[in-house]
């Protein structure tokens, strides 16, 4: 009888154990969720992003697999709206914050205001100005992935060879000109300062001397001012008379020339840091130099955005990945390896971050951010139809006042059409 009772007890306990085990097993093998994300990270930072995503796929306990699809930004922007309309879009996108407003306005992305509460992520741990870029009014549409400005890159070897102190980079526009002239040596095909004709970096110089292009609400044309004409004349003189920059330089050329040691200084975002480190270039990074009005640099960044029409399971899984990105370990790895400024208070205190010289320089140079039509639907028209054609003509030697007048007239029509 005793034996029978024991065997019954054993059988019961085994059954209970197997049931309990079955429950655990069922939890572990929850339904697999496959997510897709589109991102325009075609540079070396894309390799780091892919590694982080792969690590997430291997380590997450929620059976989530994120498939990263990297494509150039023009392709992504032309494909995404039609993909959403036909229900063939990705689960979420990682794009520049300048697109957030128009995506939200046109119903391409979801309201994710419940993200902080649902995931238990402390919103106050992050810089307010960075988070603000992902809000439209009080509604959250994105989770920031990175924040950046434009910075002045300088090649320490060239500056030293020109008889200047490589540890004291130019802090004013006058010093920038002095350094650029000193570092230019046409016989060696070496230039002091890269001034491309196909990007909108010139706003940094316009702002520095008190000029501007358009009011932040997009209603007032501020282009045709004496400050702007003077600054553009100064840039034209640097290229045509002082020869500090190759004529007809493109932004891609400037990257290549800086990597090849043919360019002493140029302005760019932090996405080049990883590549420069890999090439072993002896370089430094500092803030955009100040003009008569101060120093300013256009803000930029990227956010993760949930594609419109996501079901609850997809939303939950994307939230989990977004929360993973905001964890200290991930943000730290991203900043450490790519040089993007830190925007999380807890990561900022990290010893390894504090010991990273380039990163500290970048973080220090990131305090002069200024909004460059991030929330305006006509942003790309201001770039493509107004600013780029204007700087192209100015740097090719056309009359500055006439170029500014022409650009201003186009800007008037762009404002009127919106």
């Amino acid at each position, binding site marked *: 009888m005793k034996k029978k009772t024991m065997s019954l007890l054993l059988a019961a306990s085994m059954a209970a154990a197997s049931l309990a085990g079955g429950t655990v097993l069922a939890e572990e093998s929850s339904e697999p969720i496959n997510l897709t994300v589109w991102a325009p990270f075609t540079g070396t930072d894309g390799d780091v992003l892919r590694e982080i995503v792969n690590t997430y796929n291997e380590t997450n306990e929620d059976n989530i697999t994120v498939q990263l699809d990297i494509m150039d930004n*023009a392709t992504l*922007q*032309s494909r995404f*709206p*039609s993909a959403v*309309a036909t229900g063939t879009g990705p689960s979420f996108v990682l794009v520049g914050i300048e697109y957030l407003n*128009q995506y939200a306005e*046109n*119903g*391409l992305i979801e309201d994710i205001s419940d993200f902080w509460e649902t995931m238990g992520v402390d919103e106050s741990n992050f810089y307010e100005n960075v988070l603000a870029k992902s809000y439209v009014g009080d509604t959250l549409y994105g989770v920031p992935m990175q924040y950046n400005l434009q910075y002045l890159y300088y090649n320490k070897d060239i500056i030293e060879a020109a008889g200047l102190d490589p540890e004291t980079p130019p802090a004013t526009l006058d010093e920038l000109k002095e350094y650029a002239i000193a570092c230019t040596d046409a016989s060696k*095909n070496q230039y002091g300062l890269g001034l491309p*004709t*196909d990007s909108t970096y010139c706003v940094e110089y316009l702002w520095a001397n008190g000029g501007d292009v358009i009011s932040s609400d997009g209603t007032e044309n501020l282009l045709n001012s004496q400050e702007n004409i003077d600054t553009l004349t100064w840039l034209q003189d640097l290229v045509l008379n002082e020869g500090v920059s*190759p*004529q*007809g*330089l*493109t932004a891609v*050329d400037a990257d*290549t*020339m800086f990597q*090849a040691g*043919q360019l002493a200084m140029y302005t760019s975002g932090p996405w080049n840091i990883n590549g420069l480190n890999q090439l072993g270039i002896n370089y430094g990074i500092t803030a955009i130099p100040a003009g008569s009005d101060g120093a300013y640099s256009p803000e930029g960044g990227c956010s993760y955005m949930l594609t419109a029409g996501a079901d609850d399971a997809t939303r939950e899984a994307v939230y989990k990945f977004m929360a993973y990105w905001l964890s200290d370990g991930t943000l730290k790895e991203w900043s450490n390896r790519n040089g993007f400024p830190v925007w999380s208070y807890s990561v900022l205190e990290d010893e390894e971050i504090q010991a990273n010289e380039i990163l500290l320089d970048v973080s220090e140079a990131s305090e002069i951010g200024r909004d460059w039509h991030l929330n305006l*639907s*006509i*942003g*790309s*028209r201001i770039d*493509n*139809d107004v600013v780029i*054609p204007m700087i*192209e*003509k100015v740097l*090719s030697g056309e009359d500055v006042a006439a170029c500014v007048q022409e650009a201003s007239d186009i800007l008037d029509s762009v404002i009127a*059409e*919106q």
Partner: protein
Amino acid sequence: MKNESTGRKKSSSRFHNQKSAYLFIAPSLAILTVFVFVPLFGAFGISLMNIDIYMNDISFAGIKNYLKMFGDARVGNATFHTLYFALLEVPLQVLVALVLVMFMTKNTRFHKLLRTTFYLPYVCSMTAISIMWAMLLNANYGMVPYLLGKVGIQMPNLLASVDWAMPTVILVTVWKGFGYTLTVLSAAALGVSHSLYEAAELDGANGFQKFLYVTIPGIKDTIGFCVVTTLIMSLQVFDQIYVMTSGGPQNSTETLVGYIYNRGFQTAPYDLGYASAIAVYLFLIIALITFVLRKYAFNQGGGEE
């Protein structure tokens, strides 16, 4: 009655024959309908709408997009550059191919090798070729300016120059495409009867005269085919310009297809209606030029009547 019955039989037999013919062309017709006719009429329909890439707030615009187009200086600029490209690229490509055909009228192993070599760039991707040439010609780190600099020749920054950018793109396009034209013309030239060459020889014609008075008239229709197809392609030029110059500097290489892409997909407010209006305008230009060329220049399309 008898006649009627015979007629009905003939008509039924003709219908039977035609039915088979229709069945044969049905697959091609289906593909053409889906990928040519529907997009063509679709583009015309969209050009009459206020519609952007987000497909929100769609409304009827009438001919507003067409009126806007005629007041847009960049459409005029793009039309000029499209015609500039086509009128220089097509004759140059056909001429280079014709000159080479003159030296390759025989089917020897050496001529075959030359034809294969010239054909190679044609099978490569236009994007890859454009990237390669843009790098080779780059004034700051390109191989060509570097080597020329070594022998004391300073080359201008071709792709950054308002005057040189378009001719450079045209030359790269000719370099890529002449192999195809050469192959087609060579095939036609090999088909010209030998008796004609022998007769010309008896009349004392030299090599050039034989080419001019025997080969060229013999392959006239093929030259017409090459001109028309190359022209249609060159009026739709996009890839090489997008990769090599992005339409710059100062819009000096911006063509109609480039501008359509810019308005529809690159620059806010991503106006698909306006972009489609320009596409319809380009279609009409191509249709008109092709019709005139086929009808008058090469006497095709019913010219025998």
